């Protein structure tokens, strides 16, 4: 087989689908999760892993939404309860409570933080034009955390800004 024939055999992005699995067709992928009844999403490229809830080691004199730190393969990762931070729903911990560990790379340094959410729901493919700005009628979640809104069927998903989620954590604690 010559090289040109081989090249033709390589699937072009978007052509390839297997039943039951969505491959990337276009746009970005977002991981959605639930806080109480509301749907939220983060850029899937930032997701390091999804873990089940385990009791973390407490950090002395930290705010209530910092649950503590856990050992993730030798890395010390702080755990933030998003429900407490955004004051959405009640913070209960059961077998099904999950922790989404997000890593955000910024100019060579990276920061890994785990966020407690009620449940992980889906992965969405979204074109960037489909992310609409959020109306500025403030809810519990500050506008700096929100990148925009996505319409998914008849639900609205809030896209969270991972950079801010990680960054603000730090400043708030220092004050």
């Amino acid at each position, binding site marked *: 087989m010559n090289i040109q024939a081989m090249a033709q055999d390589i699937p072009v992005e978007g052509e390839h689908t297997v039943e039951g699995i969505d491959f990337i067709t276009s746009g970005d992928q977002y991981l959605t999760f639930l806080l109480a009844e509301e749907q939220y999403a983060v850029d899937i490229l930032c997701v390091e892993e999804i873990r089940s809830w385990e009791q973390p080691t*407490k*950090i*002395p004199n930290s705010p209530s939404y910092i649950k503590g*730190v856990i050992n993730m393969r030798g*890395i*010390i990762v702080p755990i933030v309860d998003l429900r407490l931070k955004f004051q959405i729903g009640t913070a209960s911990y059961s077998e099904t409570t999950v922790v989404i560990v997000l890593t955000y790379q910024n100019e060579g340094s990276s*920061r890994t933080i785990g966020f407690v959410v009620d449940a992980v729901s889906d992965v969405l493919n979204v074109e960037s034009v489909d992310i609409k700005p959020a109306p500025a009628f403030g809810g519990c979640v500050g506008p700096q955390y929100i990148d925009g809104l996505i319409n998914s069927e008849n639900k609205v998903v809030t896209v969270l800004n991972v950079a801010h989620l990680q960054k603000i954590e730090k400043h708030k604690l220092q004050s």
Partner: protein
Amino acid sequence: MTVDLSQFIPSFLEESFEGLELMESGLLNLEAGDNETIHSIFRAAHSIKGGAGTFGFDSVTEFTHLVETLLDEMRDGRREVTSKDTEILLESVDCMRLLIEAARDQEDYDQDKVSKTSARLSETLGEETSADTESKSEIDSSTSGGSGFKITFIPEHSLAKTGNDPIFLFSALAELGDLTLCANTEELPALMDIDAQELYLNWQLTLITEVDKSEIIEIFEWVEDECVLEIEPITNTVDEVGQDNSSENDAPIVNELSIEPQSDNTAIQETVDTPKVAAERPTEDKGKVTNTKAKADLGSIRVGVDKVDSLINLVGELVITQSMLSELGNDFDMTKVERLTSGLEQLLQNTKELQESVMRIRMLPISFAFNRFPRLVHDLAIKTGKEMELVINGEQTELDKTVMEQIGDPLVHLVRNAADHGIESKETRLANGKSEKGTISLDAYHQGGNIVIEIKDDGAGIDRTKVLNKAVDNGLIDANATLTDSQVYDLLFEPGFSTAAEVTDISGRGVGMDVVKRNIQSLGGRIQVESDLGKGSTFKVNLPLTLAILDGQLVKVGSETYIIPLISIVESLQIDNTLINRVSGDMVLYRLRDDNVPVLPIYKMFNLETQCTEIDKALLVVVEADGQKIGLMVDDLLAQQQVVIKSLNDNYQQVAGISGATILGDGSVAMILDIPGMIHMALEQAQRNQRARADGNNSVAAEVCL
């Protein structure tokens, strides 16, 4: 003593670029009255200046001195922080970067920009305050040019044997004006034929200055008979300097020579370096901007082959153990339990040895940090006009690389202080019945799990009353407070504290000692001062051998496990009810033999829930830091073990009272207590309470007066 300083230049560059970044970001966020930021900018500039001085990057030192003077005025509040000044400072930071890059690449720089900025700086300094006129005139003379002399200096080969070092002459000349040197290496024999005590070089010097010829002759007075000396006045300097380019070709040859241990080694190297920088000035090429040449230098380490070999052996053994264990696991039954236990034991042994071996890779002899000091002391001796010598002991003592990198600067500060403030002038020393020559000694040795570095001088010692008076002037302490000696010496580490009567190029601005202490503390070490008035002082720096692993005592508080560094534990004891005293209100003291130790319950400090709130049911771990003992109340003592320190900073941030975290055998995370931090926390808490109480009392008193 032969010291090849060039090996430290990369680390200086790295530090300087970091410092510049810090200055820049500080300046960009600078607002009026923001003293902390000004302090940190100033410190960065100060470090760069100090480092540049050590390595002979004179252009950097000169320029940074101006910047520092301006910053000093801002710091003291003598000058308001205006946007115009910030602008100039930012520009200066750019210039400093240019200069350092130029020094690094040994290339020329945009001299126009630098001289313009330095002119602006001196202008700013001059217009509002009676600024540092000395440095101003220095810059003026170097920028304005003017008349000068062309000096041909051909010393006899035996010049060095008579104790005359040309470098002293040249530095004396450099004080008169802008000196350009060009070394002639023609007479230099082949390396094999060199007599280490002979001097083979001769020099062409161009001195741009306003002074009289007689002053120059005076400098050469001592060597007149042993050299050929011609001094010709010149008016137009540019042509002369252009000649220097020829020296550039010769320079590398001489540079190679410096490998040879030779008494005037440093002299040769310097004289070669200086004309290089100077020669490049006139051949300035404006199109050539060097900032693209950012050499990425990742931290690297030089490891002896024997260390690597032993590591490979150990890994080999580990592999054998592993294959043995996996074979055992293939068809395991109870008859093989014994073999399994012995295999696991072997694994434990292997792991331990491997760990030690890897740790040893990070260990370097402290001579890496000490090597720069002979030159520093030598230069300081010239600058201060005092006679002093440096004695180094224990330079083979090994120390973790990270610790070594961070201890360099604090040590420089301490040595400078010893040279500048400690050692007295020749006359004073003789009058006090001491030998003419002052001695500064650097000692390093192991003590327990620590390394101790002593910086000792046989100088004047610390004048207790002088320190106290200064502290009262600065409002640091009350005029009639009674302090112990160690408390008095601790005052030296307060920011902005200096007893030096005048600010010199070397020290006296009161910056440094606070940084020294902070750096040492951030390494988990401590510094002690001992002093004998009239006899000298000793600064003792105590550092942990490594930052990566720590011996810890695991303790239980409520449901949490904490680790107390074993090194800070004095003793652990069961509380004896009769020895508990409640005094001065709410303070709980425990009588430990003659000492009264304040008791701090960890559960209270960290807001934890525990069953064990009764003091007589708990255990007391007595710890010591900064000379202060406290008793930490814990529920239970668990095992003692080595723990690997993980930073909380990476993904989180510094937590008060916690120095880091570690992962225990069961995979859970435990916090490592920061004992000095906890003492600090407790003191702050106590002060807050006292203040609150004092406020209450004051209002009562006021009512009574009414």
